[in-house]
């Protein structure tokens, strides 16, 4: 690197540049926070949806599935599963409920989580709410 470009100039670019872009990031974050309510429909987050999210977390669903494309890539995307299953919570519940305890020979299978009917309902409500988030039209099709 050229001698005219000194170490202190490099340091100033580092400090000034990072500070500037971090402040810009904070500004955009502030703007995002104020526009999110219209996109996430938080008015629909009932205690049931919140409890569904907690069940989602406490059973580590993200360890196999993606949710809005984030997670593991071992099992289907669930951000739009409510729509894929015909906007029918009962189908979701029946699917989770019917997983065989010892799996399916040679195939991937979801574990049997022994959830109660109330829990299944909460989880389905959470997946329904998730499917209504404005994701800029992602995923590209119903398969997720």
């Amino acid at each position, binding site marked *: 690197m050229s001698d005219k470009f000194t170490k202190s100039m*490099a*340091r100033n670019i580092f400090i000034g540049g990072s500070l500037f872009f971090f402040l810009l990031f904070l500004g955009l974050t502030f703007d995002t926070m104020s526009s999110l309510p219209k996109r996430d429909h938080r008015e629909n987050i009932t205690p049931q949806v919140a409890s569904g999210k907690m069940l989602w977390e406490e059973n580590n669903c993200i*360890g196999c599935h993606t949710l809005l494309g984030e997670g*593991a890539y071992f099992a289907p995307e669930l951000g739009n599963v409510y729509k894929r299953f015909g906007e029918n919570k009962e189908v979701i519940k029946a699917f989770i409920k019917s997983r065989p305890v010892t799996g399916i020979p040679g195939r991937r299978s979801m574990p049997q989580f022994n959830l109660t009917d109330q829990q299944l309902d909460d989880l389905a409500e959470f997946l329904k709410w998730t499917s209504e988030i404005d994701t800029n039209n992602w995923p590209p099709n119903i398969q997720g």
Partner: protein
Amino acid sequence: MKYKSQAVAKLYFIAALVLFAAQVIFGLIMAYQYVVGDFLFPEIPFNVARMVHTNTLIVWLLFGFMGAAYYLVPEESERELYSPLLAKVLFWVFLVAAGLTVAGYLLVPYAQLAELTMNELWPTMGREFLEQPTITKLGIVVVALGFLFNIGMTILTGRKTVVNVVMLTGLLGLAVFFLFSLYNPANLVLDKYWWWWTVHLWVEGTWELILGSILAFVLIKTTGVDREVIEKWLYVIIAMALITGILGTGHHYYWIGTPEYWQLVGSVFSAMEPIPFFMMTVFAFNMVNQRRKDHPNKAAVLWALGCAVMAFLGAGVWGFLHTLAPVNYYTHGTQITAAHGHMAFYGAYAMIVLAMISYSMPFMTHGKPANSNKAQIIEMWGFWLMTVSIVFITLFLTGAGILQVWLQRMGTNPESFMAAQDSISIFYWLRFATGWVFLAGLLVYFYSFFAGGEPKEENA
């Protein structure tokens, strides 16, 4: 090794390597589950294996960074470590906490672990990479604070160099952004938004500072190039890393409910994220070409150069591959992401820790600057076996990902997820086979520590 207290790093490096082995073994288990879905089911279901795989990765890298800091900071600061005792105590606290957490993952169902650790009081579990019980997360905060205090006091009362100050800045950032892992709102969009403040601002932000400072240290020591030159490079590289990487966070905000303008911001800035990695490669090769001495530890130089190249390929090129919003629309959450993840983590972070271990371990085991020729050749075999395997694992996952996108998300009759997975299973078989070569490389690498022979002296 100029100061006695640097030797505390050895503990950290040994723990890091043991956890690395665990990570690879669980990776192999998962790779097999990808093709034989019921392997170890229901005892070790995929989600558990994955938690162990990713969490041991994170923890071994943290052990590696801490070890690197304990070795590098006294030497740069020209004084003994502020408190070697604190470093040892925190080591055992961290190791026991990590061990208990992994045991918890493996021994009880995750829901029961959540119950046992009273997750409902402060729910933070069950989010990717942040699966640790809340109590473990708090433990990590305590260890990080103690560690930063120890390192900070050593630097503040000693010589301040660009290398140790940049490292301290990176470590401080690591600790600060980890705090976002303790925030988990019921609103999934907010949860995801702030989750990235830990995950992205770690790996595409503060960790790059740590990476840069370790690389600079190893290059100063092994090439003898003037510190002024290396430090200028370091500043420019980390400046570019943060200038592109902070707003580059936007590439995670395309499809999670956040506004559309992130598609523009994220695409523009993350498209520039390869620049600092490219500079790192140019930097490393330039310094080695301009070297003022021939350091006898050829293996360490190989790791440093390898790290720069593989970080550029894995983080830079494979990151760019799917970072533009119109491309990411189709590739988001597919095997393309997994491909990028594997080469980026190995290239940037695993390799820099291994470079530091390679450089420092000879001093800590026999006080000479380099292992015997024989040991170094074995170590280099380990380097090549692991590095070539990760390249192939990445290529196979990329093949799988491209086909997955095509079958599942494009075309007129898109297949279901599982149908597409069946169609691409050949790539998973190839990845699984390559995983064994990686494990073989790791074992060869481990063997190099016991190969013996006459340690090499400093070249005249």
